[in-house]
Every structure is written in structure tokens, then in C-alpha cells.
């Protein structure tokens, strides 16, 4: 960085380049979405067999490549904009100093020195001669120069010195900005192989962390997100940002943007998918770096006496918990990715509205089938005991994720001309077992979080369509207790929390009457669960999860009691199918189609 460089530097050129990278981000994002929701989905929906599987694997890798491009180009774009913003004051200072010099008919040399002509009162019949001032940023040197200028009969010297000093300052400031940003931009150079590996994604996460620090002052100038964080405030903030500002926040803070209730679902989805891929990269690297468990776990202390070996104990103390946590988190991430890979085989686009393997102890995952911002009918399913990120898509029927998928298909079938969105919401620390489930502290924390999410849902839908969807909240076992607490958590928006509430296998909702949930009469629906946890239900009653020992399947609760049995059917129709159909009837406002007990 020198005078010539700074003189010719155009911050706008960097902003234009940032725009170019942003266009690459948009392209990569569209392409990755098209691969998942278009090409791969169509392939899954129509072809089977080994060739199709191989093609889908390649497509999966291609999708990952495009996502990586999206992430990294987003960071480059932000870095370039932040650099341009950081260097602009220095550039302006230099230009102003040069302009002042030129205005006084001074000349600026290639090194930044300022030449000045003869001027002033004649001494011995001659004008005091001109010269050149060399700028300095050193305070002592400046003081000396000021003194010299004071003695010099040519008044131009003082002015020229001032210009030269300002030029020197500008160059020094610009040099600091250049030195700060060059390494960051160099870091963002990609390696030249065609595989996006776990290391590459972990690297992208590091790039992001580094840039956050470097871009701090640039970001301070951007409007910061609101501190009180109501969904309405979040939405207002987001929609007031320019597209560039939104892109910058998305690039640097995907974890925060992804967790902000009130923001559009496609934005949260974009953000959380970035977090998902980066975390997977980091966790996989960390897991790979853990040394193998020592084979010799035990050592003999004597005949018939064994103890754990020191080597194994050391390994256990250092690594065991972390390894289990990494493996559990990766399992949950795989389940989420598997859902993305199911788009097209009878399922709509997936939106990852929340993701954090470290939240709530057991992780956060909020995943929607179909876009809730534009849905006519939205269902939010709150799972119960034993729910955690690592199990979210467990087993042959895909666990809690699978439940929402089947509800989506059933609801779409009942209301074929409507847009449906079903959401699996796990954003609370679910109790691990029935004895723990009797403690109400889990729901006390989970209730307000659920309320905020639902308010955010409403807000995002309003911004998108100007209206609201018909919303049904479905709580299974302990999830229903969370729902009950949520209805009594101060909502930021007027009105009830939801239009309909369905509870299955509820051990109590912390209220003793349906009316206390704040919904219109007749819009609370209770059923026993297919997995018939009478133990949970009656146990919940006894330990007071229902007020006055009342649980929702009691007649005195005042809700609609929904049929859960399937004996009236034929061989293979079971309680799951009955319960799905009844839930779908409520979700789609086909209340006369609900089978009541």
C-alpha cells in the first residue's frame, strides 16, 4: 500500500466485486435447492435400483459442493464489503488532502510528497523559494516540522506540510486495513480438488469465526439485531435491512439468524443448513482425532480380581463423554440430512427452522414439511419424553420426523387443494424417562420457548401473505404439558396461541379445564396415545401435572375426546392410522370428520 495504490483504489470496485460474489451465492443456493427439491426429488419419485442410488449419491455430493460455494462466496462477499467500508475513510482522507493541494496549485509527487511554489513577502528582492514537504505521522517529527514552518517566510510550507501529513496518515491507515484484510481474503482461497470434505466445511466454519472478529466495526455500522428479541422486533429488523446487509448477516451469523423467531422460513432454513454442514465438518474432524479406545480395558490385580486399566481410565476421563456427544449429534444430523433426501418420494420441501446440537442439553431441531409462511394449515408437533436430537429420525419409520411426515401426507390427502405444513418442534429439554417426566421444570422452560416460536410463525406468515394460517398444536405425552404451559406464557401478539390443540397420551397440561387454554370452545382434542402410556397419563395425574388431578382425557376437562381405538376397522388398520386420520381432520379444519369416542 503506497500513495499511488491508494490514489487509484476504488472502494466501489470492491463493492462491485462483492456484488459479483453475492450473485454467485444466489446462483449456488438456487442450484443446490434445485438439485434437492427438483432433480433428486424427481429421481426419487420415479426411479429405483442401483443406478438410481448411485446417481443420487453423486447428486448429494454435487449439492454439498454447491452449498460450500454458497457459504464461501458469501464470506468473500462480506469480506470485500467490509474491506471497502474499512478503507473508505482513509481513501477519503487522501483524496481530500490531494484536492486541497491541487487547489493551492501544489504538486503531489509519486511518493506523496507535496511540492509548493515560491511565495510570500520578498526578502532581499527575492520571493522565498518553494520546496517539497514530506509527510509524516510521527508526532515528534510533526512538532519539529511545525516549528520549521513557523520560521519559514514562505506561507505555503505550512499548508503543504499539512497536506503531506494528511496523505501520510491516510496511507498509514490504509496500510493497516490492507494488512488486516489480506490474510482473511487469502484464507478464503479454496483448494483445488473437487471433493468438499469434512475438513473443508470445518474450515469454512473457521473462516466465518475469523471474519466475525475482523468485520466487527463494519457490522457495528450495520443495524444490529434488536436486544429484546420479540418475533415482531426481529421481523421488523430483518425486513429493514438491504439485501446486501441481509446477505452479510447470513454469511457471518447463520447460527443467530437461524434461531430468530419472526424471520422468514426460507431465511432460517438457509442459515440452519449452513450451520448443519459446518458443524458436521467440525464434529467429524474432532471425532476422527479422538484416539481409539484402548483395547485392554481391564487389568488383573490378582487371581479373580480385576480393575480398569490406567490407560483405559485415562481415555475414559478425557474422551468418552465427548465422543458420545459427538456421535449422538452426528446421528441426529444424519437423520436431518436423510429427511432432505426424502423430498420427492411423497414429501414436500423441508425447511430447517432450528438446529443446534448444543442447545437444551439434548439438542434443538425444528423441521417443517412444506413452507409454513405460505401454508393454509400448519401443524406443530411437540414430542414427549426421551426426545432428543440424536433420536429425532430414529428407526425404520423415522421417529418424530416420520410422524410429521405421515401427518403431512394424511392432511394433504384430506385437503388436496390447500397448502399444508407440518412441523416437528424439539426446542426444549425433554425429560429422559417417566420418573423425570413428573418434574414440571422441563415444561416451565419449554412452554415460553414454544410460545415464542408460534408467535414467530404468525409474524412470518403475516409478512409473507398478509394473513394467518389455521394453526394446530399437537402435543404427545410430555409434549402436551409443554403445550399447556405455552398457552399461559405471555404471548407478544394478541389472541390465542393456536386455533386448535390436540393432545395424545397427555399426563396433564397444568390446567384443569380446556377453557383455561385460551382457545375457542370445542377446539381442544384429547386422545389416548397409540402407544398407550396409561402409566404416563395416570402417573402424570398423580404427581400433579394436571391441575386438580385432571388430565385431558377426563370428561371433566371439557375437551373433545377423540377415538383412538381401531377395532371398528379391518386387519391392518391400527391405532396409528386412526390417530393420524383424526389429527389430520383437526389440522385441515374438517372437524366433522373426527371420530369421537
Amino acid at each position, binding site marked *: 500500500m503506497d500513495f499511488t495504490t491508494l490514489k487509484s483504489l476504488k472502494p466501489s470496485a470492491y463493492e462491485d466485486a462483492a456484488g459479483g460474489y453475492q450473485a454467485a451465492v444466489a446462483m449456488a443456493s438456487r442450484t443446490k435447492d434445485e438439485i434437492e427439491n427438483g432433480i433428486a426429488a424427481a429421481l426419487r*419419485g420415479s426411479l*429405483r435400483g442401483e443406478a438410481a442410488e448411485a446417481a443420487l449419491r453423486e447428486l448429494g455430493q454435487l449439492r454439498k459442493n454447491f452449498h460450500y460455494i454458497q457459504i464461501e462466496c458469501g464470506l468473500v462477499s462480506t469480506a470485500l464489503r467490509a474491506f471497502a467500508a474499512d478503507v473508505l475513510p482513509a481513501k477519503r482522507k487522501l483524496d481530500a488532502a490531494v484536492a486541497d493541494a491541487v487547489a493551492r496549485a501544489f504538486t503531489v509527487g509519486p511518493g506523496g510528497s507535496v511540492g509548493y511554489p515560491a511565495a510570500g513577502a520578498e526578502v532581499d528582492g527575492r520571493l522565498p523559494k518553494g520546496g517539497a514537504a514530506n509527510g509524516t505521522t510521527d508526532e515528534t517529527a510533526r512538532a519539529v516540522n511545525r516549528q520549521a514552518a513557523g520560521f519559514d517566510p514562505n506561507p505555503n510550507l505550512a499548508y503543504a506540510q499539512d497536506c503531506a501529513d494528511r496523505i501520510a496518515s491516510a496511507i498509514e491507515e490504509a496500510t493497516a486495513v490492507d494488512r488486516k484484510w489480506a490474510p482473511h481474503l487469502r484464507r478464503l482461497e479454496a483448494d483445488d480438488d473437487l471433493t468438499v470434505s469434512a475438513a473443508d466445511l470445518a474450515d469454512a466454519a473457521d473462516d466465518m469465526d475469523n471474519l466475525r472478529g475482523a468485520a466487527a466495526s463494519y457490522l457495528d455500522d450495520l443495524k444490529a439485531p434488536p436486544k429484546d428479541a420479540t418475533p415482531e422486533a426481529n421481523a421488523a429488523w430483518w425486513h429493514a435491512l438491504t439485501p446486501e446487509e441481509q446477505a452479510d448477516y447470513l454469511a457471518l451469523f447463520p447460527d443467530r439468524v437461524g434461531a430468530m423467531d419472526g424471520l422468514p422460513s426460507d431465511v432460517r432454513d438457509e442459515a440452519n443448513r449452513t450451520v448443519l454442514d459446518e458443524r458436521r465438518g467440525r464434529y467429524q474432524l474432532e471425532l476422527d482425532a479422538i484416539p481409539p479406545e484402548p483395547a485392554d480395558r481391564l487389568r488383573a490385580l490378582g487371581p479373580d480380581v480385576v480393575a480398569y486399566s490406567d490407560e483405559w481410565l485415562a481415555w475414559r476421563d478425557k474422551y468418552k463423554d465427548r465422543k458420545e456427544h459427538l456421535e449422538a449429534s452426528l446421528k441426529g444430523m444424519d437423520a436431518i440430512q436423510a429427511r432432505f433426501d426424502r423430498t420427492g*418420494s*411423497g*414429501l414436500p420441501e423441508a425447511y430447517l427452522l432450528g438446529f443446534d446440537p448444543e442447545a437444551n442439553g439434548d439438542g434443538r431441531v425444528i423441521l417443517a414439511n412444506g413452507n409454513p409462511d405460505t401454508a393454509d394449515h400448519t401443524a406443530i408437533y411437540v414430542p414427549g419424553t426421551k426426545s432428543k436430537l440424536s*433420536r429425532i429420525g*430414529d*428407526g*425404520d*419409520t*423415522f*421417529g418424530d420426523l*416420520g410422524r410429521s*411426515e*405421515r401427518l403431512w*401426507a*394424511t392432511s*394433504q*390427502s*384430506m*385437503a*388436496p*387443494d390447500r397448502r399444508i405444513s407440518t412441523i416437528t418442534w424439539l426446542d426444549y429439554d425433554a425429560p429422559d424417562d417417566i420418573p423425570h417426566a413428573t418434574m414440571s421444570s422441563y415444561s416451565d422452560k419449554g412452554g415460553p420457548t414454544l410460545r415464542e416460536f408460534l408467535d414467530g410463525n404468525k409474524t412470518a406468515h403475516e409478512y409473507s401473505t398478509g394473513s394467518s394460517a389455521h394453526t394446530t398444536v399437537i402435543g404427545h405425552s410430555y409434549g402436551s404439558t409443554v403445550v399447556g404451559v405455552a398457552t399461559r406464557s405471555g404471548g407478544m401478539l394478541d389472541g390465542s396461541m393456536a386455533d386448535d390443540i390436540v393432545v395424545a397420551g397427555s399426563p396433564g397440561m397444568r390446567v384443569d379445564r380446556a377453557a383455561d387454554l385460551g382457545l375457542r370452545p370445542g377446539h381442544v382434542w384429547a386422545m389416548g396415545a*397409540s*402407544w*398407550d402410556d396409561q402409566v404416563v397419563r395416570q402417573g402424570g395425574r398423580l404427581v400433579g401435572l394436571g391441575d386438580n388431578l385432571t388430565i385431558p382425557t377426563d370428561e371433566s376437562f371439557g375437551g373433545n375426546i377423540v*377415538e383412538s381405538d381401531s377395532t*371398528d*376397522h*379391518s*386387519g*391392518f*388398520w*391400527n*391405532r*396409528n*392410522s386412526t390417530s*393420524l*386420520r383424526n389429527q389430520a*381432520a383437526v389440522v385441515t379444519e*374438517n*372437524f*366433522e*370428520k*373426527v*371420530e*369421537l369416542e
Partner: protein
Amino acid sequence: MKDFEVPVRDAEKVQQATERKSSQIMELLGMKGKLTQSGALPSPCSEDGSESGTLQAYHPWSVYGVPNEELTSAMGRLRERLPKNGWRIIKEGPDGTASKAPQIVADSTDKEFSADIRLSVEPAGSDKTSLIEVTVVSACFRKQK
């Protein structure tokens, strides 16, 4: 059937077979209409709905977008044709809901599938669309690993 008596099956094949049964029912309805896009999904059979255990293929779909009379006559056509096409009618008549929808419950004669078909006729001026709702489920099985 007890859990240990349940056969092991290739889940994809069961899903495809279920979808074929749905196609057959669509043919037997003998009508043109709009169809929901869906595939058969795996669904738990066991009471506790847990991840280790038996499952079945579950395929809900509906046909809509035609006048009520067409739907009604298609339903009648289906009722006639099912017994001649490998199905045994288990139950028919109004279903047990407030809507009293005409319902047919049938099992395939090879005892591998069940179907639940319901006609839903909306009055003129309703904002809901009339439709025939079909749910086909397969027999329970254990997934071949």
C-alpha cells in the same frame, strides 16, 4: 399377529406393491380427476410405535376436482368392482363420524393389504372441495436389513 410371527420384507418392495394397489383402486374408480401426489410411507405397527419393531406401508391419497355426481357414481362403481378384483368388502356404510361419510373398508383376498375409502361430498357454495379419500395400508412386516 405376534411380533415374532411377522415376516421379514424388503421395505421398498412393499411400498411399491402398496402404491400399485392404490393405482388399481384408482382404475376401479373409473374416473378422471386430480390426484394428490404422494408415495407410500413407512408407518409403525407396534403399539409403542418404537423404532425397533414392525412396520407397514401407509399410503393416503385422494381424488378430487370433479362434480359431486361423478364422485358418487365412481364410489358405486368401486363397490361393484372390488369383489371381482381381488378384494373382500369388510364393511360399508356411513363412517362413525359426524359427517357420516359413505365408507368402504376392504381387505385384499391375499390378505396383504387393507383399504379405507371414504366419499366426501361438499354442498354447493362450500369452500372445501368434494373428494374421495383412499388409504391403503400393507400387512405388518419387519424390515429386511
